[in-house]
């Protein structure tokens, strides 16, 4: 029976080549697209799930409640570790301190300065206890390897990078930031890529006792750095809520005596949210919001639905031609379920072919996935989950696409089916078909609108007036240890000798960054203000190098320590002062420091990404924080200038590896996820339009055949070609207009909330919507046009004779 089903199925597919092809193309693209999205979503959801204690691991995070807003911090004051251990003995805690951009030097015989590696992904000072919470695979050594100071554990790839093979690494020494000598006494297996705590260089936590200062590790209740984290493993019976209640009391006891202007509270953040909560800093390479994942899943489902719609539409349309066959089969004794099975198996064969094609497409496209998702790892297609997914997609699509046509066809009364094809076909499924076409065009138009809005917003961002100059500024990352600082002015002089260099500025932070160094402050001898300010420590050439504009007053004079301060326009406004000149000569105090005079006001510039408001900012001098060198260079002979800069660096800091980025590239990185989403919209809007046009084309080709006779008669009666074209296009045009009115509110809601992610955003103008409707009608007409014109200009006599 089954064999027979598939045989006839295959024949009917071959007989209706054009329709089968349209179905297979549409379905395979749809399946491939949603399979890809599934792989991405599943990968993102898989983060950290390999941890055996996944559901019991938490981070003890911190929130600061100010008058109006709450800020979140993944970090916690260092002394909290001891206090937590004392007050929550039932919970296992493990601490880690991270440092980014540290340099590891591997001594080499020939090269006197050794091989230098900058560890951008971080080095971690870790307690052995952390490995009670997070489990890692050890190639050699154990958590106990981190008991004593000056020990380091490397992961396999880093050990190989430093020493050739991991076996050779054991027992060797490396130097951290040219200051701390460390002995390798353990090797970890590489952390899986889907980890939010990837460890490559792990230094024993006790090492910090001597050098904590250099890594912003201060044993005081006053400082909360996101670089210091405490992880917790709850016993199975202990509930998160109970611990949170305990932490509330804990916070009251420890933070209230400090009398800060905020209420500080510790709470548990479950490991299962590490990868999805953008409020907290991540140790991994990226954080994905759940709403992005939802968008991806929805797009995947929509695309596959659209392909199914094509299938249903074409199959019901085609059922007109099949009514004869169905009638005969019934006369020959087939019952409904047998017919149903037969038509279902035809669907299954088409879906099967499409799935094979889809697997091919997915396989070919998978390496490019990193352009639409922050996935650097090469994912594999043939995993159990994907296999299960493919099979379930196959079953669902077969049911979705095949059910309705099978029901319609198998329901036919045999006599009517044999006698009068047209009548039955005309009635069955026309309204359904209209509904489905409307659904398709609604999806396409929503995606068109989303695409144009996303592209415009991203354009707006790249063209936005930032208030500073982002082009042609090279950023060098340096260290602010005392030796390097003493060489700074000579280094600057040497750099300025290079013909392509216009100016050089030492600072802690370029104008726009995602750095969050903020503090409480007071103005003009009043009590502390109710909001925080962000701090930037810069030398006097900062304005010149980054092209910032002075509103009034002047820059602070060059000084190794804090002496004078400059503030931005936003801070002036937030203080409730109308005239910026008023603040000149007044005093400001940050933290518990002394009072410093304000000497200038800088015109507003975007202090962070355009998602956020401009932060009230204070700019002042303090040499020990100058980690960063900004160099404004001429755009001519860029390569030569860069080489010359590197040469000067190596001459001054041979023990430090040279690393530089262009400032505008750093800024682009703020919008990586938005850029990916916008690209994603582009691709999938394109696919959606393609699939719906494919379906439209199929329907029109079918209509053209059906209407051959009608068109012939009308022509004989004197109809014009235009009026004949209307015969074909009128219905689709109406359907597109109907779907437009459905898609407007959906798209408006969707993009309105997306744009709300940005403080600086474009208005959601009606042009986006007009573009969508005009382009979809145009595309539909072009699709319909060819077949319609062909039918309309055909010789009427021929059309009539071919009855």
């Amino acid at each position, binding site marked *: *029976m089954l064999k*027979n089903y598939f045989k*006839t199925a295959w*024949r*009917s597919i071959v*007989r209706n080549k054009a329709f089968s092809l349209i179905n297979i193309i549409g379905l395979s693209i749809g399946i491939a697209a949603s399979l890809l999205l599934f792989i991405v979503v599943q990968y993102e959801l898989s983060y950290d799930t390999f941890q055996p204690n996944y559901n019991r691991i938490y981070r003890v995070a911190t929130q600061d409640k100010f008058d109006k807003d709450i800020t979140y911090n993944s970090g916690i004051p260092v002394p909290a570790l001891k206090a937590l251990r004392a007050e929550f003995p039932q919970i296992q805690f493990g601490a880690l301190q991270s440092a980014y951009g540290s340099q590891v030097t591997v001594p080499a015989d020939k090269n006197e300065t050794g091989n230098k590696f900058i560890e951008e992904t971080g080095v971690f000072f870790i307690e052995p206890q952390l490995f009670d919470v997070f489990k890692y695979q050890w190639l050699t050594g154990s958590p106990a390897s981190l008991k004593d100071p000056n020990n380091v554990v490397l992961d396999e790839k880093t050990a190989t990078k430093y020493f050739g093979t991991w076996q050779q690494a054991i027992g060797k020494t490396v130097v951290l930031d040219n200051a701390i000598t460390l002995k390798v006494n353990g090797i970890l297996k590489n952390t899986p890529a889907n980890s939010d705590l990837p460890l490559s260089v792990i230094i024993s936590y006790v090492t910090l006792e001597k050098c904590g200062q250099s890594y912003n590790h201060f044993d005081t209740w006053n400082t909360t750095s996101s670089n210091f984290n405490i992880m917790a493993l709850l016993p199975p019976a202990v509930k998160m809520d109970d611990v949170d209640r305990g932490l509330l009391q804990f916070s009251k006891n420890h933070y209230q005596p400090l009398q800060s202007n905020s209420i500080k509270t510790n709470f548990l953040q479950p490991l299962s949210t590490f990868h999805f909560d953008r409020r907290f800093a991540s140790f991994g390479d990226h954080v994905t919001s759940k709403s992005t994942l939802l968008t991806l899943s929805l797009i995947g489902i929509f695309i596959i639905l659209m392909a199914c719609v094509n299938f249903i539409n074409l199959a019901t349309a085609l059922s007109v031609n099949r009514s*004869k*066959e169905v*009638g*005969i*089969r*019934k*006369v*020959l*004794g*087939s*019952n409904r379920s*047998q017919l149903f099975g037969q038509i279902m198996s035809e669907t299954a064969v088409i879906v099967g072919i499409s799935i094979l094609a889809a697997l091919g497409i997915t396989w070919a496209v998978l390496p490019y996935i990193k352009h639409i998702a922050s996935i650097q790892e090469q994912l594999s297609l043939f995993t159990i989950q994907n296999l299960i997914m493919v099979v379930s997609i196959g079953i669902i699509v077969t049911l979705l696409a095949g059910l309705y046509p099978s029901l319609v066809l198998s329901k036919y*009364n*045999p*006599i009517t089916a*044999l006698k009068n094809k047209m009548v039955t076909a005309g009635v069955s499924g026309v309204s359904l078909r209209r509904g489905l076409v409307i659904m398709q065009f609604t999806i396409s138009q929503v995606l068109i609108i989303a695409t144009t809005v996303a592209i415009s917003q991203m354009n707006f961002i790249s063209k936005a007036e930032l208030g500073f100059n982002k082009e042609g500024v090279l950023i060098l990352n340096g260290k602010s240890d005392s030796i390097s600082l003493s060489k700074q002015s000579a280094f600057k002089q040497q750099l300025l000798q290079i013909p392509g260099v216009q100016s050089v500025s030492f600072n802690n932070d370029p104008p726009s960054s995602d750095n969050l160094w903020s503090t409480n402050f007071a103005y003009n001898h009043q009590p502390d203000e109710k909001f925080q300010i962000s701090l930037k420590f810069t030398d006097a050439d900062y304005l010149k190098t980054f092209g910032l504009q002075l509103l009034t007053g002047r820059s602070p004079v060059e000084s190794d320590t804090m002496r004078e301060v400059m503030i931005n326009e936003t801070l002036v406004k937030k203080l409730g002062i109308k005239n910026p000149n008023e603040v000149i000569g007044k005093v400001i105090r940050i933290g518990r420091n002394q009072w410093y005079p304000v000497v200038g006001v800088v015109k507003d510039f975007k202090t962070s990404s355009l998602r956020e408001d401009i932060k009230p900012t204070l700019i002042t001098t303090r040499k020990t924080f100058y980690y960063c060198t900004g160099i404004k260079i001429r755009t001519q002979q860029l390569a030569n200038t860069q080489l010359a800069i590197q040469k000067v660096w190596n001459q001054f800091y041979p023990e430090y590896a040279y690393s530089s980025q262009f400032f505008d590239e750093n800024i682009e990185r703020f919008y990586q996820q938005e850029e990916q989403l916008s690209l994603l919209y582009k691709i999938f809007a394109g696919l959606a339009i393609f699939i719906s046009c494919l379906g439209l084309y199929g329907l029109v080709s079918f209509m053209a055949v059906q209407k051959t006779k009608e068109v012939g008669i009308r022509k004989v009666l004197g109809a014009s070609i235009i009026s004949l074209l209307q015969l074909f296009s009128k219905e689709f045009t109406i359907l597109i207009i109907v779907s437009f009115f459905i898609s407007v509110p959906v798209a408006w809601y969707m993009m309105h909330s997306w744009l709300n992610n940005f403080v600086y955003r474009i208005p959601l103008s009606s042009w986006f919507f007009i573009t969508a409707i005009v382009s979809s009608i145009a595309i539909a007409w072009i699709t319909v046009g060819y077949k319609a014109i062909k039918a309309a200009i055909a010789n009427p006599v021929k059309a009539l004779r071919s009855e």
Partner: protein
Amino acid sequence: MIELKHISKWYQVGGKPTFILKDINLTIKEGEFVSIMGPSGSGKSTLLHILGMLDDANEGEYHFMDQPVHSLKEKQRSQIYKQHVGFVFQAYHLIDELTVYENIETPLIYQNIKTNERKAMVADMIDRFNIVGKKDLFPTQLSGGQQQLVGIARALIAKPKLLLADEPTGNLNSKQGEEIMDLFKQLNKEGVTIIQVTHSEKNAGYGSHIINLLDGRIEKTN
């Protein structure tokens, strides 16, 4: 074998019923060869479809081999039909996607007969109709007469007790028609009950008696 009592069939046309068949009473015994005649539109095909259980009457009783067809469920009816009735059409109605062999085989598949048995039965039938050379051709590759032969072979493959034929020779030339009629005669002798609709007096003469339909009523039987 067949008993119709007060069978009526009507369609609603413009709100009021138009009768196609009106109060038909009819008995056909096993082994008979009946011809139905009458002008176009008199309801012959409709009657045949009701006899073949492809269509329902609006009123009346239909007993087939002592079973009350009019009150049976779709499933049971389909079961009786599958086992006992074969149908031949004027327009042949072969499945274009299937070969001659497969067309003939199809009814057996629907009766869940095993592959080997099926093979033997189809081979026998193909032998009998002398179309061995054509068994792998598709219907469009055959002449009208050949197609009708296949249609009859298909109708007979499941060894029906009743063969219904709606103008089986309507599209054939007189020589082909004669061959088909001879075949029917032969089948009838072997015990198959045959009911055919025909416009030709000559063909009607092959049967044991004739039913004349006029405007949905039985005019006379002889």
